[in-house]
């Protein structure tokens, strides 16, 4: 696949620049990926200011830890996305937001869901919200919990009262569906 090897070559050059401590390359990485990362962070924390702080923090981490990135274990983007997601999850945990959500009963959760959904709607993300929202409820639920709220699959299985295996296959089904429809 020609495009795949192109992407690989491009990523490799970026990684080398980052690892060599070239701030120009950091700017380039930012230009290429900050919007995608910021979109995910915004969607996770629902707070623009906090999202900006997290993005900033994450990029400083990307810069400082570029040496520990190992291309044999995945793509640069995956690595950066997980740094962003982990930073956002840490913030959510320290705010107590996530634990609160986690402990609410199904009943309360049902009542709160529409409001939460409403808050999360942003004109910029409307396209993906459409796709994510258009998912079957059981898929949307699992994507929200694991991808956007940072639940571990164990936590998600407890939260949803489902066996671990089901959580995993559902997550896979949901992501496969998105893979086809984005």
């Amino acid at each position, binding site marked *: 696949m020609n495009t795949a090897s192109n992407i690989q070559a491009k990523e490799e050059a970026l990684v080398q620049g980052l690892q060599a401590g070239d701030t120009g390359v950091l700017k380039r990485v930012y230009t290429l990926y900050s919007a995608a*990362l*910021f979109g995910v962070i915004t969607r996770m924390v629902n707070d623009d200011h906090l999202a*900006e702080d997290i993005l900033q923090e994450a990029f400083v981490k990307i810069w400082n830890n570029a040496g520990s990135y190992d291309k044999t274990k995945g793509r640069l*983007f995956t690595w950066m996305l997980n740094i962003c997601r982990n930073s956002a999850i840490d913030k959510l945990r320290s705010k107590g937001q996530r634990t609160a959500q986690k402990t609410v009963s199904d009943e309360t959760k049902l009542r709160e869901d529409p409001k939460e959904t409403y808050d999360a709607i942003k004109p910029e*993300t409307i396209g993906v919200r459409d796709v994510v929202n258009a998912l079957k409820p059981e898929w949307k639920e699992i994507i929200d919990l694991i991808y956007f709220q940072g639940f571990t699959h164990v936590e998600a299985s407890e939260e949803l009262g489902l066996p671990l295996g089901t959580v995993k296959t559902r997550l896979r089904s949901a992501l496969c569906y998105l893979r086809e429809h984005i």
Partner: protein
Amino acid sequence: MNTEEYIASGILELYVLGELSAAERREVENNAAEYPAVRAELQAIEASMEKLAMSMSVEPPREVLEQIMEKVEPKQGAAKTIHMDPARKEPLRWLRTLAYAASILLFVSVAGNIYYYNNYKNVQGQLADMQDQNQYMAGQVEKLQAGYGKLQNDMQVIADPAFTAMTMRGLPISPDASSVVYWNKEEGSLYIIANNLPAPVEGKQYQLWALKDGVPVDAGVFDVDGGLQHMHTITGAQGFAVTLEPAGGSTVPTLDQMYVIGNV
């Protein structure tokens, strides 16, 4: 291992999302290394995760990049901590040596510049001194030339047979004094050279008198250091005398201030 079942279990998605424990991660990595199908599926999941993120892009505010750039520094040492394999260390040592050498060269260059700049400053000062000296010498030469020209003129007078040289001797007021007049009796042209007269006090000047039938006639004032000086035209004089008078001269000589006298 049944890779299809393995893939379908959803563990690869969790791997990409960073949701697995260290042991589980190692297992996935081993399987990916072993089974191309697992490797391909991982890549596909990663690509789809990137696409998903891209599709929900939100442009962050401009300041965020500025804030990030303020917090990061270009890291010279970064490469050092990354490449731990010995093969990579050698070029780095060379690089460091090169950096040391470059900084030493820079230092030497800066020191050299300072040294040469100071030298340059000195030379500039010396040049200015030389220029001053040169100007002074030129002035001196001009003076000497003028003096020489005058001497030549004086010599012409002295050597001219039409002129008679006449020495005036010192009087009791100044017994050692003497002066010489050169006089063209026919034409009346008259010169004096002070020769040996004491320097006059401030406000006084020597005056030459022609003695004509016992009457002193003003022949003009002169300076002691002026060499041969042209005086008034005098004819029919029997003698000459010099008195010290107020500067500019008098109409009648101050007789008790007569320094030298001589007869034709």
